[in-house]
C-alpha cells in the first residue's frame, strides 16, 4: 500500500507538472503538490462510501482491502497519465497562446485533449481493476463492473468539487494578468458558477 501511495504521488505530480507548464512555471510547480492532493483528497473523502457500497453489493472485501483497491485504481490512472506527460507537456508548450479573452488560441483544444486522456486512462484502469477483482476475489463480471462504476461515480461526484476548489490546474496566460491564489476556492467562474455542480448545471443550461 505504501508503494502504491508513493507511486501515485510521484506519477500524479509528474502529470500535474506537465499540464501546468502550458500556463507558466508557477502553475507547473504548484501542480506538483496540487494534483496528488486532489487524488488523495478524493480517495480520503470517499473512503467510507466506497466501503459501504462494496458491502451493499454483497462483496466481503474488508475496509483496508477496499481502500487498497481504490488506491490501486488511482495509482494506475496516475501512472498512465504520467506516461503521457511528455506528450501533454509538448502540447502545452507548443500550443498557440491566447491573445485576449476572445481569442483563446489552442487552449480549448489542449484542455479537451487532457480531459479525453484522463477519461481514457480512467476507463483503462477501471477495466484492469475489474479483471483483477474477477480473478482475485471471484466477483462476477457484472458485480465487479457495478462496484467499480459505483466507486468511479462517487469519485467523480466528490473529486469534481475537489478539483473545482483546488483549481486552477491549467489555464490561459494572458498578458498583464495577475497571479491567481493557490486555490481559487468558491470564486465564481466566467459563467458565475461557484461550485462544480453549478458549473455542470450551467454547462447543460447556460445562464442568460
Amino acid at each position, binding site marked *: 500500500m505504501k508503494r502504491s501511495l508513493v507511486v501515485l504521488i510521484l506519477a500524479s505530480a509528474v502529470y500535474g507538472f506537465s499540464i501546468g507548464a502550458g500556463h507558466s512555471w508557477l502553475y507547473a510547480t504548484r501542480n506538483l503538490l496540487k494534483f496528488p492532493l486532489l487524488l488523495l*483528497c478524493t480517495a480520503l473523502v470517499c473512503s467510507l*462510501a466506497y466501503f459501504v457500497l462494496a458491502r451493499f453489493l*454483497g462483496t466481503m472485501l474488508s475496509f483496508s482491502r477496499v481502500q487498497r483497491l481504490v488506491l490501486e485504481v488511482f495509482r494506475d490512472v496516475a501512472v498512465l497519465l504520467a506516461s503521457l506527460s511528455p506528450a501533454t507537456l509538448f502540447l502545452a508548450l507548443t500550443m498557440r497562446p491566447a491573445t485576449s479573452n476572445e481569442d483563446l488560441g489552442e487552449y480549448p483544444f489542449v484542455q479537451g485533449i487532457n480531459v479525453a486522456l484522463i477519461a481514457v486512462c480512467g476507463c483503462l484502469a477501471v477495466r484492469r481493476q475489474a479483471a483483477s477483482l474477477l480473478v482475485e476475489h471471484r466477483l462476477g463480471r457484472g458485480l465487479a463492473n457495478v462496484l467499480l462504476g459505483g466507486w468511479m461515480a462517487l469519485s467523480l461526484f466528490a473529486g469534481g*468539487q475537489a478539483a473545482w476548489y483546488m483549481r486552477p490546474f491549467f489555464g490561459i496566460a494572458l498578458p498583464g494578468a495577475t497571479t491567481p491564489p493557490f486555490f481559487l*476556492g*468558491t470564486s465564481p467562474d466566467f459563467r458565475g458558477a461557484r*461550485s462544480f455542480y453549478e458549473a455542470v*448545471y450551467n454547462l447543460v443550461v447556460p445562464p442568460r
Partner: protein
Amino acid sequence: MANWRMAGTTRCDRWFGQRGAACLRSSQRLLDLALQSEYTLHAKAKTPMPDAAPIPPALTPVPPVAGDAATQPFATHELQRSWRQPQRFLEIVLAERARLVASIGSPVDRLALVIVLLACSIVFALPFGAVLGLRRTGDVAMLFLGSVLICFPSLQVFSSYLGMKLSIAQNLATALVVPAASALFCFGFFPIHWFLEATMAKDSTLAAADIAIGLLSISLLLGLAHLNRCLFDGGALRSLRSSRLLLLGWQALLLFITWRMAGVLGIVR
C-alpha cells in the same frame, strides 16, 4: 487412491460419530458410503470426482457445507457482538442479506435483531446530522426512523388484513431495514457532505445543503432498494411476495411521509 479413501474415512469419522466410524472401518460397503459422501461434496462443488462411481443417493444425512451457514439466522451472541464491534452492523444490515432475511423469518430472538436495527438507524445517522449542524445532529435519524415508525402501524394493520402471517416484531424488523440501511449509507456519505460543506459557498444557487438533500434521497432510495431485494430476491420471506403491491404501496407512503418529515425538520425548504 488409498490416501483419498483414508481422507474419506477420517471425514466420515467426524460426520457420523464413533459408531458410524467403527462400522466404516470394518466393512468395504461402508467405505463406499464414505466415498459417496465425498462424491456428494464434490458434486456440490461442481468438480468432477475421479474414480468415484455414482452411488444411489440413499445415504443421509449429507453433512452441512459451508454455503448453508450463509443462510442461517443470526445467533443472539452474534447480534450482541456488534455492540463491541460496530463494523458488524454493516455486515448484519447490508452484507449478510440472506442471514438478515432468515433472522426476520426466524422465531428466535427477534427482539435482539430489532434493537440492533434501531441502534443502527440512530447511531449511523448521527454524523451526517452533525455536519448539517450540531443542533441538528439527530435530524437525519429522526427523518428516517421517525418516518418509518409513523408508517409502521399501517404496515402491520394492512398486512394482517391482507392475510400476511407476520408478527409485530417481524413487521417491525422488516420496516427497520429501511432506516438502518439508509443510515449506513448516510454514514458513508458524511465525509463527502462535510467536504462539500467546507468547500462550497453557502449563499450560492446550489449550496451544500441542496447536495445534502440529494445524498439523503439517494440513501433513502438505496435503503428501499435493499428492503426490496431482501424481500423479493431470497426465498425466506416467500409469503410476502404475494403482497408485493401492499409493500410497494407502503413504500410509496413512506417516501411521501419522509418528504413531509424533511419539511417539518427544515431539511427541505
